[in-house]
């Protein structure tokens, strides 16, 4: 048996190398699929933020080793959190039929995780800014004064955190300005302007490119 293996060792080695080569080709294809899917879905998200099944490429190799090697986890977590933020504005998650409060809670969880784990300071700052937006836009039926004060204080803390992480985060600065004016509204035109922004979605970054409220 050993002698036979020795005689055919070249053939066995070539078969093994062919197998490895095939796996590597499939792996390269999976990497390419990831690249094209992320590029395509980033554009899709800008046009249709509530589009379903974004950033989920159909890869060939089981267990998606390409994703593990490239390290897509954190980048995808940021994108999915962004989409959840948009679901909160739509009021539901079309993929799981979650209602508005559950979507808000999920979005807040994701943003809070990202503040500590996102790969770049800009993403961590954006996550803190969006968490502040989620907090300040939480519905407070009955207008409980104590609750509103607490929420504004917490939102201001998140906006300040966003600014401290990334001092060039203009959206967070503007959102902080709005919240501070709501806490202590002025009598002039600017104070009224801040009120208009709160709750009605007319504040900074409500358009596609921004991330404020």
């Amino acid at each position, binding site marked *: 048996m050993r002698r036979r293996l020795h005689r055919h060792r070249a053939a066995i080695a070539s078969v093994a190398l062919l197998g490895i080569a095939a796996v590597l080709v499939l792996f390269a294809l999976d990497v390419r699929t990831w690249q094209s899917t992320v590029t395509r879905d980033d554009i899709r998200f800008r046009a249709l933020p509530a589009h379903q099944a974004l950033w989920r490429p159909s890869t060939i190799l089981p267990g998606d080793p390409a994703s593990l090697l490239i390290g897509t986890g954190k980048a995808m977590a940021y994108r999915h959190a962004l989409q959840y933020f948009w679901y909160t504005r739509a009021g539901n998650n079309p993929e799981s039929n*979650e209602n508005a409060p559950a979507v*808000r809670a999920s979005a807040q969880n994701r943003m809070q995780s990202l503040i500590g784990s996102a790969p770049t300071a800009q993403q961590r700052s954006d996550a803190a800014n969006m968490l502040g937006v989620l907090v300040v836009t939480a519905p407070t*039926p009955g207008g409980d004064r104590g609750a509103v004060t607490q929420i504004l204080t917490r939102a201001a803390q998140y906006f300040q955190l966003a600014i401290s992480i990334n001092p060039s985060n203009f959206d967070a600065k503007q959102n902080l300005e709005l919240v501070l004016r709501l806490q202590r509204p002025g009598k002039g035109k600017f104070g009224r302007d801040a009120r208009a922004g709160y709750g009605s979605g007319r504040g900074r970054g409500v358009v596609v490119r921004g991330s404020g409220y």
Partner: protein
Amino acid sequence: MRLPTLHRRGAPALADLPRLHLPAQRTSAVRLLLAAALAATLAWLFVVAKSAGTGRAAVFPEGTSTGVVALDMSASISGPVYARVATTLRGIVNANQSVGLTMFSDTAYELLPPNSPPGAMLQFVPFFVPLRYYGSSPVFQQSPWDTFMGGTRIAAGLEMARIALKRASVKHGAILLVSDLDDSDADQALLEDEALRLRADHVPVRIVPLFASPRDRRLFAALFGDNAFVDPSVFTHTAKRHAASIAAPQPWTLILVGVLLVVLLAGNERFNGRLGASGVPA
């Protein structure tokens, strides 16, 4: 200069001793490796065994030093729900773990500080056990918080529990929320905020739902995670089911480390045993 060695004097020199140099090194390496692995496994076993089987209640996550029960006393908690509250409280007492207790409705207050003896909770159980039945309706004794009952503000209860843990300087504390989860709409924003705070402070929350609606369960699963729920039936003991749900979790780590130790010992016997003299009659 020749250094003194432990070699026996007068022993006959082996002609092919240099040829045994490589196998001797390999054997030494295997012996050292096995000895290090055995020592490390034994130390690991000791550490794992220290925390195993200490009777921590399954309602609190593993690694929790103590917990605070946040009990919903709003007007929606009454009648048949009381029976489940009583069972839950008894279950926590049976777990023999130090606890604290806060109650909440529209507001919250602390009844027992964290690290209170579990038996202290028994004094509250009679208020949730019916004195008698009027027809099929249970009649309960007057409780001190009858006038306190009102709407449901779960955020207030969780906040009080979190403050109680902080005040008692508990480092690895947890909160057990016992509620029907029918929270006031006005409490939504504060509840979300409190959930964020608890996560930031790394305070795990477990929930015993008291006949909660699927909608409310979904919301709380989103707030505190799907695995936050404790099935209320784990507290009950029936004639057919003897599930000791309030018990220490299975010590899987301990078992695995024990198996590893056995495997290493077997390896030691296999590779480091004395050479048998084949062909020599005993």
